[in-house]
Each structure stands twice: as structure tokens, then as C-alpha cells.
């Protein structure tokens, strides 16, 4: 195409095209000028090893880096630790559906404890409002807004990470950034996660959350008690999830959602201890797990008391079965 003897016309034509092309290219790179070099991950963070491969000294260096990042970002001195699982402990959660009133205190106590992003909003616990007489989750509504709860025609089912014994989220992770700990908690190394969201898609309980944008928390709302595997600050583009508050529970305390529950519907403990509250619940109560048929073997159990409810409207007939859920004609 290039003419052997460049004429004035072809020089101008090619020159204008080249200048326009360079202009467009430079304009396309314009967002780079808005990049703040301070926000980029440090070389240290890039070279950090996987959680399971770090030596104690390397872990201490990583914790020191996280402390410095928290101090820089939120201006506070965080107490960041790497807390190991306890021997002879397997955590189990049990939730009494006869008692839950759907007040969502657990949801917001969890957010406050675990430093979830406030904007965009990330919450680990989703409280489903279900019509009485069904366990069909498709009829559940998490956007309910009554002046007071509980509503007489509904019951409430909080859903969070079930800490499965056979976790599909762990199986699909292409980089082994999420795994199951010896005490049954499925955890994430936020520095190893590549943000592919396979685990979010694999989870049948919608328990995993993705940081689509840079998490935003007011400095006064940050909980300075942090652990590497649970509530240290996350960055944009990584997954996060409920860890049964391992920075609390691995030190004998109760999860934040349980402490907040005003009705005592939540029970937590060590299933390997036959005298624990959860062991008694599994032995004596009518217990079920959500989506048993998908074979995830959750460590989160729902149970009932003998009667429900104990107040007015006790003898209401069950709600009619919706047409799409009825038996198809044969």
C-alpha cells in the first residue's frame, strides 16, 4: 500500500492518521493518571506465600504488614493475630426456628464484628421470611420490612455459611485460596484469592460475598481485634465469608451473631464434647439441615421446639399450597 515515492498527499494522510491514533491511545490510557501509587499492593504483599506455606517468621512479617496497612488506612492500631484451631474441637452451630423472631440483630452485629464493607454493603447473614407451613426457600423473602417482627403468618430462617464437611466452594477454587481447617471452619486467604467467584457460584447457600468495589468502613466502625483468616480488612476483588468469628470462637468466646440474639435462638459449641449444648440439641431435638440433598454435610443445623408457635393464631390452618408447587397432573 505504501507508495514508493511518497507524495505530499500520502504524507499528510498518514501523518493525520498516526496523530489521531496516538491521541486515542493516550486518551484510552487516561485512567492510569488517576491511579494512586499508595493504593497499589506492596511488593511484600505480592511475594507473600500461601497461608499454609508461611513459616512463623513469615507470618509475623505478614501480620506486621497488615497492621501497618490498617494504621495507614484507618489510623488505628489493630491487634492482628493468626489464631490456630484448638485440638479436639469441631464447631457446630444450631439455630432454633421456633424462637427466631427475624429482628436482624445478628446480621448487623456480624457486620460490626467482622469489618464488612458498609458501602457497598456486604452482609454474611441473610434472614429469610418464610410463609408458615413450607420450607420452600423459593418462597423466602429477605427484604421484609414490618414495623415489628415476628409476623404471625411467617417464620424466619437466617442463612449464613454452613461450614460444610464436604464444601463445594473449596473443591472449585482453582488456586486453593480457600480450605477447611481441622476445626471444621472453611476459611479464605484473602491475599491468595484471585476473585474468580467460582466458590460463590458453587455454594448452594449463597454464603460467600464478593468485594465488587473497594470496601468502605468509617474508621470509628473498625473492629481492631482481627485475625488473619477472619476479619482483617479485605480489598477489592476478593471473596469473603462467615468464619463463625474464629478470632472469638477459637479463644472460647461466642460468635458475635449469637451474642446479639435477643431470644437465644442461636446455639454454638464443640460437637466433640458430648455435654455441649449443641450435642444435646442434636441428640434430643428435631434437627434438619438446609438442602440435605446436595450432599454438603453442613455443620449448621436448624431445629424446632415441641410446639410452634406458642402464641395467638396457634390453630391457624396451614397456608394453601401454591399451584406451581402442587403435584403435576398425571
Amino acid at each position, binding site marked *: 500500500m505504501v507508495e514508493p515515492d511518497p507524495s505530499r498527499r500520502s504524507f499528510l494522510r498518514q501523518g493525520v492518521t498516526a496523530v489521531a491514533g496516538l491521541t486515542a491511545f493516550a486518551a484510552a490510557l487516561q485512567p492510569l493518571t488517576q491511579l494512586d501509587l499508595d493504593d497499589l499492593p506492596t511488593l511484600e504483599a505480592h511475594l507473600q506465600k500461601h497461608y499454609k506455606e508461611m513459616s512463623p517468621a513469615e507470618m509475623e512479617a505478614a501480620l506486621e504488614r497488615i497492621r501497618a496497612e490498617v494504621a495507614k488506612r484507618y489510623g488505628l492500631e489493630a491487634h492482628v493475630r493468626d489464631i490456630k484451631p484448638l485440638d479436639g474441637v469441631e464447631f457446630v452451630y444450631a439455630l432454633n426456628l421456633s424462637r427466631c423472631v427475624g429482628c436482624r440483630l445478628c446480621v448487623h452485629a456480624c457486620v460490626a464484628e467482622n469489618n464488612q464493607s458498609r458501602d457497598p454493603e456486604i452482609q454474611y447473614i441473610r434472614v429469610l421470611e418464610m410463609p408458615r407451613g413450607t420450607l420452600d426457600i423459593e418462597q423466602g423473602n429477605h427484604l421484609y420490612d414490618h414495623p415489628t417482627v415476628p409476623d404471625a403468618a411467617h417464620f424466619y430462617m437466617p442463612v449464613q455459611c454452613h461450614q460444610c464437611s464436604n464444601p463445594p466452594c473449596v473443591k472449585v477454587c482453582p488456586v486453593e485460596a480457600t480450605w477447611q481447617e481441622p476445626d471444621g471452619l472453611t476459611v479464605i486467604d484473602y491475599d491468595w484469592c484471585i476473585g474468580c467467584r467460582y466458590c460463590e457460584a458453587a455454594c448452594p447457600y449463597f454464603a460467600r460475598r464478593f468485594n465488587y468495589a473497594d470496601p468502605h468502613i468509617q474508621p470509628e466502625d473498625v473492629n481492631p481485634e482481627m485475625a488473619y483468616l477472619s476479619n482483617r480488612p479485605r480489598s477489592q476483588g476478593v471473596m469473603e465469608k462467615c468464619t463463625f468469628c474464629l478470632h472469638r470462637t477459637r479463644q472460647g468466646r461466642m460468635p458475635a451473631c449469637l451474642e446479639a440474639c435477643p*431470644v437465644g435462638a442461636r446455639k454454638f459449641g464443640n460437637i466433640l464434647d458430648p455435654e455441649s449444648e449443641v450435642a444435646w440439641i442434636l441428640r434430643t431435638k428435631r434437627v434438619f439441615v438446609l438442602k440435605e440433598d446436595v450432599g454438603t454435610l453442613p455443620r449448621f443445623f436448624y431445629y424446632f421446639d415441641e410446639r410452634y408457635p406458642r402464641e395467638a393464631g396457634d390453630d391457624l390452618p396451614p397456608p394453601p399450597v401454591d399451584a406451581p408447587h402442587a403435584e403435576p397432573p398425571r
Partner: protein
Amino acid sequence: MRAAIPVVLLLLAAWFLHAPEGPGLPSQPTPAFDHARLVPSTPRTPMADPRIMEVAGLDMRCNDCHDIFPSAEQPVAPLRQHTDIVLDHGMNDRCLNCHARADRERYELRGDVLIGLDESPRLCASCHGPTFRDWERGIHGRTDGYWSAAHGQPRRLTCIECHDPHSPAYPGLQPLPGPHAWRAPSEAAPAADAGPLDFWLQRTQAAVPPEAHDG
């Protein structure tokens, strides 16, 4: 035809520099709510022990009055004293079913056994057997403190730390704000099939105040 290439490139440059940011997230921060409610608590705080009541401007213990004035065999309805009490406990509607006749600062079990006001589970167990059985095992009611005895002691809240014994049904609670409707259709979020151009048009139209169109 080839003269169009620089024009297209310059248009692209203009777009890169001046195009709005993409639709982004229909992000909504959590509505404000009373964070004091997150402090672990139940809807009820029982009166201190010993119970102190203000009568005619004086702080009085139960027996200060009840040692002097005899009580009626049957309760008077409506109550002329203790008018703050709402009695809604089913068929258990007699004061002296629970309160001891001889000592109003104690409860009375069957067989004339008197127990302290901090031992309410023993009293409630007289009727609520299965609930008491669950409570003893920590299955009913709230447990504060630690799940692991090696780290600290759990504390089981007693019956009257959650339930008002005079009307024990749980009061309704105001729910805290729900999640925002990220995945549900909402007015704030652009339509699912809207591209950046739709968003830009929508935004420029919204940015122009309506009166600018007049005249």
C-alpha cells in the same frame, strides 16, 4: 474512505476522555439505625434484688407494705396497687400462685417451699417442664459468656431476664434494616440489558433540569 479513520480515532479519543464511568454498582449504604441495639441484651431487665418500689416518694421493699396490710384471698380486678403490671399469663392469673403469702420477697413452690427471687427457673419449672428441661441443658434461652469451660464460664440467663413473668409472651421487636436489593429489580439500578450508552443517555437526561427545555 480512508479519510474516515482519523475521524473515528479522534471520536474515540473524545469518548475515552469524556465518557462517564460505567453503570457501576447500584450501591446503597445501609440505612441508619440505632447501633446501641447491637449491645447484647434481651428485651427485658428484671428489677434489682431486693426489689425496691417507689411508694409515695419513698423507696420501699415489698414487705414494708405487705407485712402491714393483708392481701385479699382473690386478686382484685383491676389491681388498685401495682397498676404497672399487665397480667397476661393464661390461666395463671393469681398473684399468690407464685408470690409467697408469708414473705413477698420470695417465691413459693408447691409444698410451702420458699425460694429466692433469683431462683425463678425452679418456680417456672412447676408448669413449664419441657422448657425447663431444655433450659437446664442450655437449649432454651440465651447463654452468655464462653462455649468452652476451659476459657471461661457460660452464664445461662434465667427465665425472668427475658420473659416478663406477668405477661411472658415475647414482645414484638422492630427489625433492623434489611439488605439492599442488589439482585432484585429496583428503581436505583439500571435495567439489566442497559449498556454504557443507555446509562450515559439516562444520566445526561437526568442532569438537565426540566425547565431548561422550556422556551
